[in-house]
């Protein structure tokens, strides 16, 4: 397929596109100039590759104010990171509190553990997706170990009050596991101030790296003795032992890492820091409010979530009358060149909370590269689709069965 300039990409919550030019350049440079195995051999090219990986740990730690770059475990994506935290740390008999706005990357590993004896409480969020911190506190039991919550909904972008949840974790001596799939790079995150113990991130969304990158940042309150990695294997360290090492980051990193992707992730984070996270956030907030206001002004369109750009990431979900989201998505693509995601967004719990299960919604998710013109075009397309829909209803009323072809 040829991608030309006519397309409007509004699917950044799935993966950001386009990426900064520097990201692709860094990946090509790693592949062609320093493509040795990082952290294995000790020759200069392997060390240069290992330096890129280490500097990326530093960049990640700086962006989230993590206490130690060595706590950054790289992996394939946020799903792998959440699985590492959930399956690696929790045991049958432990109690975990999560929310009704979670993505399946959190919910499914928790449900799987629940079948093996984990106690799970799912705190109900409001129809706008807000998590009431007092309900989290009320659900705490003597055997509660982890509060496992998303930072921002992948369906409607609603932000979780992390500082409040972190304060509850501090008060009761619990660990806070935060899924930052939708917020990392788009929203300020301070691991130490907000008392986040396990931070799961993905590299290919608002960190502007490539797919196949992400990780779990492990803070100092996490008991490493209790941590069982999902995979054991070569780490380039303690090679004389047949048992897997128990220190960070090797504990969670087996096998050759995605060096090319990690080099791209470093460039992505650098790009964010150069632009300024606040500048990106402010740009995206302006566009989000423009989108919300535009959609709310169209008769027949229902918008879900907070409806205030300040309280959400640049992800907006809506429906047009009773048109099926998949039909709307197809027409946006084919008739308007607008690319978005429709349906349940791998988050059935969230859609049940929002009242949009099982049909789902149409989701426009913006990114740093989107413009006011993109948003204007998207609003105009939705308006046209909603008008066509009205005309269709109108015309159907006036046709009898014999008029049908």
């Amino acid at each position, binding site marked *: 397929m040829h991608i030309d300039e006519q397309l409007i990409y509004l699917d950044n919550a799935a993966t950001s596109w386009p990426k900064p030019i520097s990201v692709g350049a860094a990946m090509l440079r790693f592949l062609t100039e320093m493509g040795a195995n990082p952290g294995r051999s000790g020759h200069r090219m392997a*060390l240069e590759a290992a330096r890129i990986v280490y500097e990326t740990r530093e960049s990640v730690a700086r962006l989230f104010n993590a206490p130690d770059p060595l706590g950054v475990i790289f992996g394939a994506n946020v799903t792998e990171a959440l699985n590492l935290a959930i399956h690696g740390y929790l045991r049958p008999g432990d109690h975990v509190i999560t929310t009704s706005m979670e993505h399946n990357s959190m919910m499914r590993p928790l449900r799987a553990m629940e079948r093996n004896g984990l106690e799970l409480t799912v705190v109900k969020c409001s129809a706008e997706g807000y998590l009431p911190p007092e309900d989290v506190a009320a659900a705490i039991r003597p055997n509660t170990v982890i509060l496992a919550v998303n930072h921002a909904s992948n369906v409607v972008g609603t932000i979780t009050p992390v500082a409040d949840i972190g304060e509850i974790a501090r008060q009761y001596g619990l660990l806070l596991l935060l899924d930052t799939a939708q917020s990392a790079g788009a929203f300020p995150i301070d691991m130490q101030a907000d008392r986040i113990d396990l931070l799961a991130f993905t590299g290919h969304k608002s960190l502007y790296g490539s797919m196949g990158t992400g990780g779990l940042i492990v803070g100092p309150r996490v008991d490493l003795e209790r941590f069982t990695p999902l995979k054991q294997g070569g780490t380039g360290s303690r090679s004389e032992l047949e048992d897997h090492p128990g*220190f960070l980051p090797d504990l969670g990193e087996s096998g050759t890492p995605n060096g090319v992707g990690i080099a791209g992730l470093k460039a992505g984070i650098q790009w964010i820091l150069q632009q300024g996270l606040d500048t990106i956030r402010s740009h995206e907030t302006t566009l989000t409010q423009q989108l919300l206001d535009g959609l709310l002004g169209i008769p027949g369109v229902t918008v879900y979530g907070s409806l205030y750009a300040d309280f959400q990431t640049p992800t907006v979900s809506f429906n047009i009358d009773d048109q099926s989201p998949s039909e709307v998505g197809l027409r946006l693509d084919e008739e308007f060149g607008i690319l978005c995601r429709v349906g349940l967004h791998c988050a059935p719990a969230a859609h049940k909370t929002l009242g949009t299960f099982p049909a789902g919604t149409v989701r426009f998710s913006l990114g740093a590269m989107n413009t006011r013109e993109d948003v204007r075009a998207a609003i105009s397309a939705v308006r046209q689709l909603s008008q066509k829909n009205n005309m269709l209803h109108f015309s159907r009323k006036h046709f009898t069965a014999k008029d049908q072809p």
Partner: protein
Amino acid sequence: MSKIYSVILVYSTSYALKIEKILQEAGIGHYLIPVPRHLSSDCGVCVRISQSDRKRSEALLQSAQVETEGFYDI
């Protein structure tokens, strides 16, 4: 041969690179080399410094709370 170097043994390459950064910032000359076989059977890298910088390096790493497997004169 008189001993002129010390090496810092570490748990993994990531640690060596962290130490490298700290020494670099402090202006202490250093070089990453394969672990000398007589010190450890680990096949990774370690950080070689001049013996005269050993005390200062030890203090630096201690205050930065970087764990090592020890300093050895070679």
